[in-house]
């Protein structure tokens, strides 16, 4: 096992938890969207840390690919969320 993995893995867990919490407690929608992104980044970090296998060893490519997919999904979701929020601020009916 490699210390680096643990450092970033645990950091990832913390980021995940921090983000989750503020996504639930914050009132501002924008802050919530931020929080979700950070929470996601935490999970990605943990995932990539799994792949790391030392300086000379080439890392496991699978988690990298998964995270790449995850990043695109995350940005799509963020974009949709922000567009909804904008529509919400503009909406004037009732």
């Amino acid at each position, binding site marked *: 096992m490699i210390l680096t993995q643990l450092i970033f*893995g645990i950091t990832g867990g913390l980021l*995940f938890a921090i*983000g*989750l919490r503020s*996504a*639930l407690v914050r009132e501002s*929608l924008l802050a*919530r*969207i931020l929080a*979700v992104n950070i*929470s*996601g980044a935490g*999970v990605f970090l*943990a*995932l990539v840390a*799994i792949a790391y296998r030392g300086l000379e060893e080439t890392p496991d490519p*699978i*988690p990298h690919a*998964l995270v790449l*997919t*995850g990043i695109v*999904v995350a940005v*799509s*979701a963020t974009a*949709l*969320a922000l567009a*909804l*929020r904008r*529509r*919400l601020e503009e*909406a*004037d*009916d*009732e």
Partner: protein
Amino acid sequence: MNNLLTLPVMIPLGFSLLALLWPRRATPVGILALLATLLASAWLTWRVSGNGPMLLALGGWEPGLGIALYADALSSTLLLMSSVVALAAGIYSTGYFRAPGDRARFWPLWLLMMTALHALFLSGDLFNLYVTLELLGLSAVALAALGGKRKAVEAALRYLILGLLGSLLFLAGVTLTYAGYGTLDLMKLRDLLAPEPVAWIALALMISGLLLKTALFPLHFWLPPAHANAPAPVSAVLSALVVKAAFYLLLRFWLEIFEDVVTAFAAWLLGILGAMAVLWGSWRALRAVRLKLLAAYSTVAQLGYLFLFFPLLAALPAGAARDTALGALILMALTHAFAKSALFLATGVIQQKAGHDRIEDLGGAARALPVTVFTLALAGVALIGLPPSGAFLAKWQLFSAAIATGQWLWVPVIATGSLLAAAYVFRILGYAFAPAEGVTYRIADGREELPALILAILATLLLGFGSVQLWEFVTPGALAAGEAP
């Protein structure tokens, strides 16, 4: 050729592109897609019932490195269910969305949602499931926000954020699973998983994510606003299928993949939450002012029933009794899917014709829209769980299992839930049959009223009298994708 296994996913995906490219022909393209998807699903179900579970290793890579698609009795049954509901709701939508622009916006997203559902039902890979969950969530949110009413958009946004959190919890579980067991293929995991902290925590994370998505009490709070403010056809599918998708995963994980990991205590926990969902949801439904809100809360309650099965399945020894209970669980899910979508579509008709869906002002509806009110009644019968609906047989088995395992706690819960359901259903009918002066709705046309009626009939008559085949099909090998070729 097993490549045909991809059709239920790829047909809607491909046609969604066509609907995007030819916006003015979106409607015919969409209907055609739904018909083709239904055929594909039916074919798949027929194949599975004949030759047992099917497997397709995508890209020709062995599962683990590549992604595998599995189809077994359970997944193909749900595939068929969702195809039928989606077709009915789709036909209804042609009457609901009149403006070409609305249709052009609606159809590609609708088909993408079908893609997501069917991909989810067939996927055999943990991370791929995460992607399907996100696809489902985003397309569902986009559909829920159609029309852009402030309330709808707000509900959709909250729905989106909570959905994302759910997916993240799921993904965190996936991460731990990969870290611990070094594979993402469900069937491989099933053999590798052992009752140990990694598996427990991973499962806990994934389950909690799915519970959030399937809106089990007390994580249900997002559902009523989202389902009650979306356009009628969308609400129908959100309540009937989307929450079921998360539940399907939960079921598969619980009973199959993580079979050795789950504990009886956890099952009881789910049961308790289910019981509270039944009581709370039914109560709120009874107090609801608007028909759509009533339907949404009733969904919360109906999902509760599904969770009551978990402690019972945990207590029942493997064998005929357990299989029967499992069949009842699936029958319950199917009945609710058809009945609830019927209810939402009927509500949509009333809302459009009467201009509102306030329950207390439904007077005269029975005269103005007899077919739709009849549909409401039929769907109501299924929701209460009265004969001859499929839910009656399911509840019978639920009672039976509770008594057989000595878990008497559930008996009063189910009884109370049923009575509350009866109360809110007949509350609607009472107002709908009340005479009212000057009620002059436009007479609805067939494509608006018939889909709901057909769904309601499926829920009450077909599943009531013809569910034995389902039982025989689903129960023995229900969760045995492991034996895939």
